[in-house]
């Protein structure tokens, strides 16, 4: 009889353990995915427009920025500098530079397409296009049109894009008035595969708006901590100016 009790106790412990584990997992999932409450149609439309306008004008139309990046891969950290130049030719050009020279260079076009413009033996071209271009696209390129908007249970606003060419839905989370972008999630098949936190808002000379100077990314295969350390606004030539 005692043996039976012990067996039952053991099974109960195992079940409790599994339950606790499952609970923890479910807790993690619910923590990662917010409950989005729908907005009234007009309100949703207004918010989508406001949020999109704000995100589109977050950075100057033309600029050159320098970022310091710490990339974590399998708990090992690597540092590099990023130089991002946005010009009138509707593209975002990023070069990643280490102490060893240029590691890679990518161009992201306004239509979302991308190409590796500098390939070195230090960095695979496919990796540049797959990961680096995605970071540029997600963190610096204004999002396409939002198809839905809602409010999170903590009061913040959220806007979602349609499913993109890469197969994911991007969810932009802003503070309650929609004026400041705080987070970005990319969801695929209901699972979050990319998460960015944006903070450290500050102004740079020549650009009145505050921009996020700190970006923390958690992606499937890497983590990225990005600090915007320099932002030089490029002035557009006045219409009719002599060339």
């Amino acid at each position, binding site marked *: 009889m005692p043996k039976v009790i012990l067996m039952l106790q053991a099974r109960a412990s195992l079940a409790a353990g599994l339950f606790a584990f499952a609970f923890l997992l479910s807790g993690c999932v619910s923590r990662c995915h917010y409950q989005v409450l729908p907005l009234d149609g007009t309100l949703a439309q207004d918010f989508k427009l406001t949020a999109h306008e704000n995100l589109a004008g977050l950075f100057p139309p033309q600029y*050159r920025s*320098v970022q*310091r990046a*710490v*990339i974590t*891969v*399998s*708990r*090992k*950290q*690597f*540092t590099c*500098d990023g*130089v991002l*130049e946005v010009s009138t030719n509707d593209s975002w*050009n990023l*070069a990643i*530079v280490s*102490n*060893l*020279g*240029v590691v890679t*260079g990518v161009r992201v076009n306004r239509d979302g397409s991308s190409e590796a*413009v*500098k390939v*070195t*033996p*230090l*960095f*695979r071209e496919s*990796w540049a296009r797959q*990961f680096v271009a995605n970071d540029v696209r997600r963190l610096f390129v204004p999002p396409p049109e939002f198809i839905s908007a809602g409010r999170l249970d903590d009061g913040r606003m959220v806007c979602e894009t349609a499913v993109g060419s890469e197969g994911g839905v991007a969810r932009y989370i802003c503070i309650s008035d929609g004026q400041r972008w705080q987070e970005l999630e990319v969801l695929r098949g209901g699972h979050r595969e990319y998460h960015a936190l944006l903070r450290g808002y500050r102004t740079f000379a020549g650009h009145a708006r505050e921009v996020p100077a700190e970006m923390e990314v958690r992606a499937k*295969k*890497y983590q990225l*901590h990005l*600090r915007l*350390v*320099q932002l030089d606004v490029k002035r557009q030539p006045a219409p009719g100016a002599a060339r």
Partner: protein
Amino acid sequence: MKRLLTKSSGIQTNWIWLFALGLLTAITAMAEPTNAPAFSLEEVSRAMGKAKTVFTRFVQERHLSLFNEPLRSEGVLCFEKPGRVRWEITSPYKSILVSDGSGVSQFEWMDEKWKKLDAGLASAMQAVIAQIAAVMEGRYASESRDYIVSLAANPDGPVITLVPRNETMRKMMQAIEVHLAADLKGTRRIVLRETGGDFTDIRFSEQVIGLELPVRTFDRNAPLALADIVQAAGKSKAQH
């Protein structure tokens, strides 16, 4: 990515070595001046071995073909025999790469404090530091297995040029130029010329040689604040 980094780590190691060798050449060339107006590589090498400590500021400009304007950074370089190096960027961000001779640590200034990184390629970096000792011992010119070393006269001072012997290396790095002061009292600049036209130009200033560097200058866990090192360098310069 890990796989990619691992695969390329051999190449990266070489690049780090190249980069460090350039710096080390600068460091070691900041040795006691020779009186001879003309000198050989061997003489430069001998002079190198005499410098026990070096403090210097630098401005680094990376000229990239992808952009019109160079990427500029500033910082401080400290060296102490045997094999202690501190490469600190002060602008536009703060970062420290430091070796105490037995290992390498990297720190980044984040959230208003220094954060020690679990640096990748640490063993490769340490291998670089080991090369420093060899250079400091003056074996640089006589044991140039990896580079073709040449010395040229220039109106502003002699220029040592290192061209990688390895063809794969040459595909990435054409040459390293070390521009010495005419009297060998210091290194004016180092230019790392990459294949394809990109180059990194490092200009040195305010060099102090043979100073007493504070104890924790090369501490891999809690490196001394730069202000204290600068103060020590200032005192040493004033005394000389």
